[in-house]
């Protein structure tokens, strides 16, 4: 008989204990919350120390990145690509027009009007980076982390956003560079 009442007492007290625990959690949700509203909030990126320098990696194939200022439009990377995910369009620049030089002091003779890399097709073979005479196409991170940090999330809402468009010349610029204005027209426009 005593066992019976002891059982009831124990049940009631332990149940109340449990209710107390959940109630405290219900009230302190702001403090205890573990869910991260991912696209709006992110965890801070931890400072990693894996024992050696990032630069001493052989290569980290994270994502292709192009320094479009250095590109001469030689199409070497397009020919190297085994899956044809790089698309380059160029326009010839008139002889007397100067569109600058690359960081290796090579004179640019072609205007790159389109430099698209479809990263959803890319097979990360890294073959396009070797033939580049200007070292302007590279995989981000690792030895190249000084040029461009690793894009850790590298995710998009739409698959078409995986086509990275590096060319930054506008239609107007193409017009202005390829068809140099006549002296008379310039005054008219001005």
């Amino acid at each position, binding site marked *: 008989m005593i066992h019976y009442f002891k059982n009831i007492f124990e049940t009631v007290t332990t149940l109340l204990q449990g209710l107390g625990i959940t109630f405290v*959690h219900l009230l302190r949700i702001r403090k*205890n919350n573990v*869910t991260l*509203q991912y696209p709006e909030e992110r965890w801070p990126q931890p400072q990693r120390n894996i024992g050696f320098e990032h630069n001493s990696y052989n290569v980290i194939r994270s994502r292709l990145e192009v320094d479009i200022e250095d590109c001469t439009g030689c199409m070497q990377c397009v020919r190297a690509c085994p899956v044809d995910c790089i698309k380059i369009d160029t326009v010839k620049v008139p002889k007397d027009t100067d569109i600058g030089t690359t960081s290796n002091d090579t004179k640019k003779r072609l205007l790159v009007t389109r430099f698209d890399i479809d990263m959803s097709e890319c097979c990360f073979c890294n073959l396009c980076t070797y033939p580049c005479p200007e070292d302007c196409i590279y995989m981000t991170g690792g030895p190249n982390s000084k040029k461009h940090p690793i894009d850790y999330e590298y995710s998009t*809402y739409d698959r078409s956003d995986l086509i990275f468009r590096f060319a930054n010349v506008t239609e107007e610029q193409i017009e202005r560079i390829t068809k140099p204005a006549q002296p008379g027209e310039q005054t008219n426009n001005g």
Partner: protein
Amino acid sequence: MTISWLIDWVNNSWLGFLGVPGAFILAIIVSGLAIFGLVAVHAIVAVYVERKVSAFMQDRIGPMGQGPGLHAGKWGVLQTVADALKLLVKEDIIPAAADRKLFIMAPFILFLGAFIGFIALPFSETLSLANFNVGLFYILAVSSFGIVGLILAGWASNNKWSLYGAMRSAAQIISYEIPAAISLIAVVMLVGSLNMQDITRAQTGIVLGFLPNWFIFQNPFTFLAFFIYFIAGVAETNRTPFDIPEAESELVAGFHTEYSGMRWAFFFLSEYANMFIVCAIATVVFLGGWQSPFGEFLAGPYWGLLWFMGKIIFLVLVMMWFRWTFPRLRVDQLMSVSWKFLLPISFFNLFGVGIWELLSG
């Protein structure tokens, strides 16, 4: 405002040409739609609240629905509305081996059991659809009618999990009906009436100087009876910790394993309607129904509705609190809780209430 009031009102208005039968049918339709609206709104809001409460208790944040691609409103308030719309347009699957007629009928019978109980609820001093003398008995009777639908669903599905679930829930509801009814009888003994309005009116005033004169505070036996009734009520709604009829880890989903779309939604709707009914009975019988907890303060027919709904919402929240705190009972534990503990205590209670009434009255 009862159904008969509504019929009189229709007869005396420009709709008088309908005659008494027409007015009767119109009144039935109007009140039925009103109850269905209450049930549906309660289910939609309660599901949202339940998801939030469960999330908060587990240190999560529940449905949020902001940001690109997700459109459930701020804090996810439209999540249940979206889910309900999804259920409406979902494919309606009836298994080839199922007993087609019974399969179609079962969710509606189950829902009916919960639905017609709303008729006798005293929403406020003047507002109840039907105010009749066997109110409490009627609600108890019709809410156990739902078990027929449950067994039909399990049987008609032609699925071992469904049948197991249905059988378990029949055993469970029959076991828990007895302590629930006996603890209600303890109060009925004090009032001397089964009329819901009479039971509520018997709880007017103040007891012990500051507490409202509700039956939960009137004497120690009715205090105990409230908890017995509430535990048995949770068990009757088949909710955790008494959810062995639909135990996910054992029976897939129990009696509604084979149901999908709108038919499944009716099971869900009737679960929430049953919660409402059980909490409403507990409110009327033990917590003073539409009585204000502060004596005359904020009392009256309109405030009464607020108090009544407020108390029910509080009890529904407590049910959710139970659900997300306690683990599921084993079948034998479930039976022993009912037959070895709740039933003897409720009989003892009944006896105690009688003695108390004899000595004090």
